[in-house]
């Protein structure tokens, strides 16, 4: 899974973009593990992020499978309710903070410098630091499972006072772990902003950037805005638990609802942090395989910005049943419905890009197309959830579980996989095995729908979320969901096989691995040498067919 590494002697740079590189002045990297501990190279750090995220994806997935195995049929068979709650909580935390977010950061590390013609990230040592914080944070988080009283068992949303007064003793470690992960995210975001603002190739205006850079730039601002809010709220928890304050303790004059306002002021932008970069990836892949410029580039940028801005005004739609005043319910219902407009614009743009294209269905395209369809289904259930009176029925049921898994799994995760298939030739110099990738795709699509579609019905029929056992009328839905979950989980092993095989060999890829690809990363050799764009490329717009249309 590591990138093909160049030999230690200076590399022959083959394109005009990288000619004149000064590879000879670089020292040989330190041997063994130190090389990875000390690396400041954006490609190596990108690979570290991606490998870390893949491992965490499997750990979080195993937790999910424990949950699905227990829910396979009514009755308590495998685990007790306490451990079940730890599994749902850890699954959520690991998937959000350790799998999806680092995967996007890994892709950003690898691809943003290549897409804007920069030699590296703006702050390479900070980059190293922000990655190595992550294993520390999540080893700490996972270790809480072994502590007396068990790990976090209050859901990934950790509502007070369940997560304060009534929490297991390990909660203090959970807080520390989130603090560390939060610092990592903030530093990563600062680095991405600094890189994009300062290091674009001469001649590349903001509105010439690939959409992946745009969506990540906006995501980075969201991260800087809301991660400190998360840090604040968990610090208040820390004080409540250890230092006798009563921020969230009603008996001491505190306010449990305040916790939810603060959490969701972080939490809703966080949801978009996990989807905006996905929009960027899909916006790169669809034009490539439709062989046609992205429709509505400018409106894509504006729609992304609009979604980001709106995300600060919708948080209380997670709180429609906590007893908000009528005026607040109406305000948050209206703002939430508004989100559908820019999101719709994006979907329409992708589909219009397909219209009158010349379409082929390579693995990245398959995942991108499934993303468009299944993310849109998640969007529809999102519109339904926005309707506050109906949300009194949907809230905290499996309908919500179905909704957010549709936008996160065939949404964010499929986009990440699409991105991996798209850029693997650039990373490894080889094409991924098409047959295996197709197997991975179809098993994943069927598995994901078997898992999550029945959850809509279970939720509407009245099944609350986060319960370890359920009434008999929900048995059929849960049986199908569990079978689908195991199928989806197993099919990810195929993904690992594809990636490993691709690193080790396969059909050689040229610099421009995909016929319809246009962005700057396709002008450097495949595999991309360790150091690229040491002299900036000349970016020309409009005048060359193989450069991105503005």
């Amino acid at each position, binding site marked *: 899974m590591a990138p093909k590494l160049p030999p230690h002697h200076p590399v022959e740079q083959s394109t005009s973009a990288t000619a004149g590189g000064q590879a000879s002045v670089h020292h040989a990297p330190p041997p063994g593990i130190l090389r990875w501990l000390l690396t400041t190279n954006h490609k190596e750090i990108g690979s570290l992020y991606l490998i870390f995220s893949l491992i965490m994806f499997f750990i979080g997935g195993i937790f999910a499978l424990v949950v699905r195995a227990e829910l396979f049929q009514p*009755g308590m068979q495998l685990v007790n309710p306490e451990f079940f*709650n730890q599994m749902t909580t850890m699954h959520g935390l690991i998937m959000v903070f350790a799998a999806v977010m680092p995967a996007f950061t890994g892709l950003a590390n690898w691809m943003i410098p290549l897409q804007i013609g920069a030699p590296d990230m703006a702050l390479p040592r900070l980059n190293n630091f922000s990655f190595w914080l992550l294993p520390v944070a999540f080893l700490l988080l996972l270790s809480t499972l072994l502590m007396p009283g068990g790990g976090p068992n209050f859901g990934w949303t950790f509502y007070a006072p369940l997560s304060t007064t009534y929490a297991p003793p390990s909660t203090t470690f959970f807080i520390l772990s989130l603090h560390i992960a939060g610092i990592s995210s903030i530093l990563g975001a600062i680095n991405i902003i600094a890189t994009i603002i300062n290091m674009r190739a001469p001649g590349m205006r903001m509105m010439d950037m690939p959409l992946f850079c745009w969506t990540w730039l906006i995501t980075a601002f969201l991260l800087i805005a809301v991660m400190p809010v998360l840090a604040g709220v968990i610090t208040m928890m820390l004080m409540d638990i250890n230092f006798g304050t009563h921020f969230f303790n009603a*008996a001491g004059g505190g306010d449990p609802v305040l916790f939810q306002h603060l959490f969701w002021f972080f939490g809703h932008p966080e949801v978009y942090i996990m989807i905006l970069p996905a929009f960027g990836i899909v916006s790169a892949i669809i034009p490539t395989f439709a062989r046609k410029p992205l*429709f509505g580039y400018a409106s894509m940028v504006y729609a992304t910005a609009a979604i980001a801005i709106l995300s600060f005004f919708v948080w209380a739609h997670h709180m429609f049943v906590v007893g908000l005043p009528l005026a607040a319910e109406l305000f948050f219902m*209206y703002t939430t419905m508004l989100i559908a407009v820019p999101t719709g614009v994006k979907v329409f743009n992708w*589909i219009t890009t397909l219209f009158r294209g010349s379409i082929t269905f390579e693995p990245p395209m398959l995942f991108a197309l499934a993303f468009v369809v299944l993310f849109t289904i998640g969007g529809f259930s999102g519109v339904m959830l926005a309707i506050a009176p109906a949300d009194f029925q949907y809230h905290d049921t499996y309908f919500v579980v179905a909704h957010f898994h549709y936008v996160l799994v065939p949404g964010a995760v499929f986009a990440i996989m699409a991105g991996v298939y798209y850029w693997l030739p650039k990373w490894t110099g080889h094409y991924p095995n098409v047959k295996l990738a197709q197997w991975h795709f179809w098993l994943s699509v069927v598995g994901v729908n078997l898992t999550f579609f029945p959850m809509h*019905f279970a939720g509407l029929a009245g099944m609350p979320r986060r319960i370890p056992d359920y009434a008999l009328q929900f048995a059929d839905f849960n049986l199908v969901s569990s079978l689908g979950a195991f199928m989806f989980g197993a099919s990810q092993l195929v993904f690992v096989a594809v990636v490993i095989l691709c690193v080790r060999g396969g059909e050689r890829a040229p610099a421009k691995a995909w016929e319809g690809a246009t962005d700057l990363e396709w002008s450097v050799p495949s595999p991309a040498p360790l150091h690229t764009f040491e002299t900036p490329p000349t970016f020309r717009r409009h005048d060359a067919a193989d450069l991105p249309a503005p």
Partner: protein
Amino acid sequence: MRTLFVWMAGCLTGLASVPAAVANGWNMPVGVTDLSREIHTLHMTIFWICVIIGVIVFGVMFYSLFKFRRSRGAKAANFHENTTVEVLWTAVPLLILVGMAVPATATLKKMYDTSDAELDVMIIGQQFRWRYEYLGEDVAFNSSLTTPTAQIRGDEPKGEHYLLEVDNPLVLPINRKVRFLMTSDDVIHSWWVPDFAVKQDTIPGFINENWVRINEPGIYRGQCAELCGMNHGFMPIVVHAMEEEEFDAWLVEQQEAAEQEAMGVDREWALDELMERGEAVYASVCATCHQAEGQGNPPAFPGLAGNQRLIDDPAWHLDVIVDGVSGSAMPAFRSTLNPVEIAAVTTWTRNAWGNDTGDAVQPAEVAEQLTR
């Protein structure tokens, strides 16, 4: 691509069969109140709008995927902007959303109108049961799961209302507006009965309001909807909706029983009598955390069987039950159990599972403790 088409066709057929399945527990229940019907209609309306938009959007998408494949010789066009369509597909969804927001606003306003209620019921969430207090009627009781552990463990076949059955259902009259005042003694719970379309968080330190006017008598079941700890999945709600006269008679009966119970405080109780009552109270109130055999679930929920401090220090034991342990999950039962119940359950825990202290705690002692 052919397989993708077959798969999509399958999905659409699945969607089309949804209306037929409405009656079979695949969809939101229509419910038994005017508001639940209104919400169901709203839900179906928005669902069908989404389906229509989906058919159009995915239709264009799959048409493009089919028609403009390179393998069919499609040559790519090069257009990438069109202000007219871009304005159009921003404006049209906006109008559709306004169309959705109008009825939603109207329904929401009705849901928030809790005025002119004929009966007030206080609903209190507790780990892991519900407490119902009929305000001004001197009737109050706890409502806990009755599904036996053996059914949950799979040692016995599961009953018809597995996990949705309680010892004391909430009893309500039909055709009267009942206002719920909702709060919690510990963590946040959420009281939800789908047939009423009532779901409201019960939050410590807050009193939320909601209301219901039931149209048909019957038994309606729901569950706690907000993760509240270990036994979140095991605190169901059962509502028994009665004809008005039947309800009034029930209420009088309950008031008389409460008076009877109050008189029991003054007399001397035998150990056996206390044990019998105490076992029932323990099963309903304590066993969810401290477990049926008093083994507990440490460290959050300490064991009671063979607990030396409990055995050695009767005064402390009673204190813990009456006033709870601050900063832990142990609530104060001062206001949720009556003196007879507290005396009985204290006696039970002092003598069950080999604790064998022989102590019989009298209701009168407890009543005195409660005045402090």
